[in-house]
Structure formats: C-alpha cells, structure tokens
C-alpha cells in the first residue's frame, strides 16, 4: 500500500529532515511511527499527503508514484486518504454533522447518501446523538472522535493519523486506539505517528522508529507472525 524507496527530504538545502527512508507497509496493515519530536514523523506524513515532495527517492501509494501526480490530480489522491490530526482541526463555525459531512460535500455526494454515511461514521465513533452539537460543546476526546469520523466517512483505503492522542488522557487514548483497530479490522491500512510509547507497546502492531530523520527500527515481527 505504501512504499518508501530511499526517500530523503532536505529543507533549505542543508537540513535533512529525512534521509534514506526505506520501508513498505502492506495493504490492511496497521503501523505506528514513533520518534522524538523533530525526528521526522510529521515530515514523513506530509510527504505521504503530498503536501511536500521528497528531495530524493520515490514514494509509492497503491502502486503509484505520488511525486508524478499532476497538481490537478492531487485533490483526488487526497480523497483516498483519511487524515486525523492531533488538534483534530474541526471547523467551529458548523455543527458536528456538517464537519463530518465535509469530505463527502467535497466529493459531491448526493445529500441523502451523504447523510446516511455521516450517521454511520458518527455511530461508529459512538457520537451519533451529538450530530447537532457544535464542536466547541464537545470534550477533547469527543472532538477527536469527530475528527476520526470525518477521516473515515468516505471510507478511505488509507488512514493517516498525526499524534491523534497527543492531547488526551491514557484512558481516552486507549479508546481512540481501539477505534483505529476497529477500522483496521475491516481492511483499512493505518499509519499512526505517536510518541506514546507505553500505549504503542501494549497494542502489538508494527512500529517504525525514526530518529534524526533516519529509520532506526522497524519492528515488524508482531505483524509477520500474526
């Protein structure tokens, strides 16, 4: 599903944010990306979202070199990826329903079909009863769940999350991770950047470890044997 081939990203001609990153994530896999802040987790995700282009190497997603995408194709590429942000990035000027419906609105889905899917996604994250609420009225954990509902509402093949539990307490974090595991169970490929090592250790998924822009660990054993 995702394949990094000797990818390097250099900023300003000198600073290597990422160097010689080489790994592969299979379809339906769930993997964590860890490392200290500044280790290159965000850079890697930005490359995957095609917000930036690698200075070296190739990134293949579903067999396609995403560096070759024409500017006009990028939006359509992004529609296949669900993204969950640390600060959930909900829009506070509209209610929960409208927030979750946003990707479907962008894709131009018929309103009744969109409403059905929004409710399904909200149901999945356990917040169907809050569809009329404004994001500001929700707790941090609920907001993050709405963010996840928005990321999965168009049923993307690939789900990326950048520190999705960064602002949550351990209990809520565990809930959120369980939610990701549920989505992984139905076939979604998931990649989560996180530095919550204790939580990650309990979950027994593949862990890619970054340090100073290099991949220093790829603990794929759990996934291989399962």
């Amino acid at each position, binding site marked *: 599903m995702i394949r990094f081939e000797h990818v390097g990203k250099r900023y300003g001609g000198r600073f290597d944010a990422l160097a010689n990153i080489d790994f592969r994530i299979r379809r339906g896999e769930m993997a964590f990306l860890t490392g200290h802040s500044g280790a290159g987790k965000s850079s890697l995700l930005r490359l995957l979202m095609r917000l930036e282009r690698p200075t070296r190497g190739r990134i293949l997603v*579903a067999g396609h070199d995403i560096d070759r995408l024409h500017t006009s194709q990028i939006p*359509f590429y992004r529609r296949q990826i669900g993204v969950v942000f640390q600060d959930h990035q909900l829009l506070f000027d509209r209610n929960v329903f409208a927030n979750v419906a946003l990707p479907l609105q*962008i894709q131009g889905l018929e309103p009744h079909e969109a409403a059905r899917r929004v409710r399904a996604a909200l149901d999945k994250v356990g917040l169907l009863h809050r569809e009329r609420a404004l994001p500001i009225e929700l707790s941090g954990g609920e907001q993050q769940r709405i963010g996840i509902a928005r990321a999965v509402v168009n049923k993307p093949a690939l789900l990326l999350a950048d520190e999705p539990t960064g602002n949550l307490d351990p209990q809520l974090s565990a809930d959120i991770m369980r939610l990701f595991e549920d989505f992984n169970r*139905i076939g979604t490929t998931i990649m989560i950047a996180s530095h919550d090592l204790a939580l990650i250790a309990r979950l027994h998924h593949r862990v890619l470890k970054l340090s100073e822009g290099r991949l220093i660990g790829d603990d794929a054993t759990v996934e291989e044997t399962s």
Partner: protein
Amino acid sequence: MSADRTPSPNQRRPRQGSSSARQPDTRQKKPRRGARSQHTGMNSQLRAWGRHHRAMALDSVQRLMRRPLGSLMTMLAIGIALILPCALWLTLDSARLLDAGLEESASLTVYLDTTMEESEAMQMASSLREHPGVAAARLVTAAEGMVEFEQALGLEDALMRLGTNPLPASIVVAPLDTSPQAVHELSERLAEVPRVDEVRLDLAWLERLRRLAELGQRLTLALGVLFGFGVLLIVGNTIRLSVENRRQEIEVVTLIGATHAFVRRPFLYSGAWYGLGGGLLAWLLLGVGGQWLSAPVQALAQSYGAHFTVPGLDWQGSAALLVSSILLGWLGGWVAVNRHLKEIRPR
C-alpha cells in the same frame, strides 16, 4: 489501482466485526470513487457541482448579512467608486447630443454681391439648393438681414440714419456632410460661384468643442479604468480578510481533497455579491443625484434658451453598470483568493 485493491476487502471480510456489517460493499467501491471520478457519473457530478454553487451562493449571502454594516460599507465604497466614471460618462453622452445639435447648425453663410436684385438672389438660392453637397439653402434678403442686425445690436437709430441698406443679401447654406473637412471644401466651391462675394464659416469653435469632447471621452475612459481598478482593490482587500479568517477551513478542506475551484467558489460568490450591491447602490445614487440636480440644470439651460434635461441611465446602461460591477467584484475575489491560495499551505 483498483485491480490490486479489490482483493483486500475480500480477504478481510471474514474478520469483520458485526458493527461494521453495513460497510463491506461500499468499502469495495469506495477507494475507486475518489481517484476515478467518472465512477460518479457525469450527471451526478454536474448535479453536485450545481448543488455546491447554490450552497455557496446562499452561504456567501448569509455571511455578508451576518455583518451587515461592514458589508454595506464595502458596497458603498464600491458604489462611490463606480459613480464618478458613470456620471462623467452620462454628462459626456448628453454633451454628444448637444454636439450633434450644433453640427446641424454648422452652416455656411454665402454673402452675395450687394448689387444683386432680390429676384436674382432668390434664383441664386434655388440654384444653390441644387448644388451637390448642399442640404438646404435659406435666403436672407438685405432687408431681413438689416432687421436681424438691428435687433442683435440694438442700433436701430444709427442704422436708420444711414438711409440706404448697406447689407448684402445672404444665403444660409446647410451642408449635407457636416464634417469639418467637407464643410471647408464646400465653402471653397461656393466661393467660386459667380457673384458670390464671400463665404463665411466659423468652425473653429466647433472644432474646439469636438476636441474637448474627445478629451472628456479619454478622461472618462481613464477614470473608468482607474476606478474599476479601485473596485478590484476594495473587493480584493475585503476578500483577503475573509480568506484570512477562514484560513483554517481552507487548510482543512485542501487536506481532505478539495480542488482549488471548490475552495475559491464561496469567495468568488462573495465578490460577486459585493459587486452587485455596489452596482445597485451606484445606480440608486446616480438616480437620486440626477433628480436632485435636474431642477437647477434645467433652469440654467432655460436661461440660455436651451432645452436640456439631466441624463439618466436607461435600462441598457443600468444593465451594463450592474454586469460590470458584478464582474469586477468577481474578479476582485478571484485575484485575492488566488494570491492567498498560493500562500496558504496546510499547517
């Protein structure tokens, strides 16, 4: 892409929990939909496009109405910027009408030999009427000329004392072609007619007037361009602020796959609405201003013995004003959003 994607859901299906029972079929279709938009079908895409246009047109109106005073200020600024070139254009347009009237009065006066008898003069007048390039010829006999002269100068007594009429008979000729060049040529030809003493034409002032009108036209054009640019700046600046205010929204929708057109749309509608509002205000103010000026202008014209009404915009002019103001607003929105789309890079 779709070919190597399809197997995965099938493999995964046995592992699905009951909670996701509704998902498998759509999951299979879904990933293709985003990348290959023809899957959605031309028709439904077009409907979605129309739906978004309607939604954004409405949404941008609601946003304008949420801060009525600010919106009104912007529209008023646009309106005022539009009024000046419009008013100048209207004035010029009516001046052109005046000019046309003057051209009709661009006539030549052919002074005849003083020794000519009245009957001969009448013959001369009718022969001039046949002359090529002459539209009309009116005889002013020596006696008539005397009366006009006396009235104009108030010299009745002085001239009476002369006893004899020193004035020649004259024929006032209206040329067919009133362009300065043609009139000049006609005057030369008429001067060669036997027993014509002199041909007078006073076109210099007409020429000057025409030059002035041309100057006015260019001035209007320059002002129009300048103030049109002003409208662009006003709208651009306003839209720039709302782009700033909605920066997060733009970033988020860009990240989840919105095209530039999608992002741009609400702002283009805002721009167009601002333009429409500004155009309507300009139209209204022009109407009110015209009414307000009409009484003194008419009185002034009457004192010169002329008939002149303050020009107003006809429906074509009004339509042109509104369409151009909407277009300017739209364009202002376009420029502002495009400039900022480049700047805004998510996170």
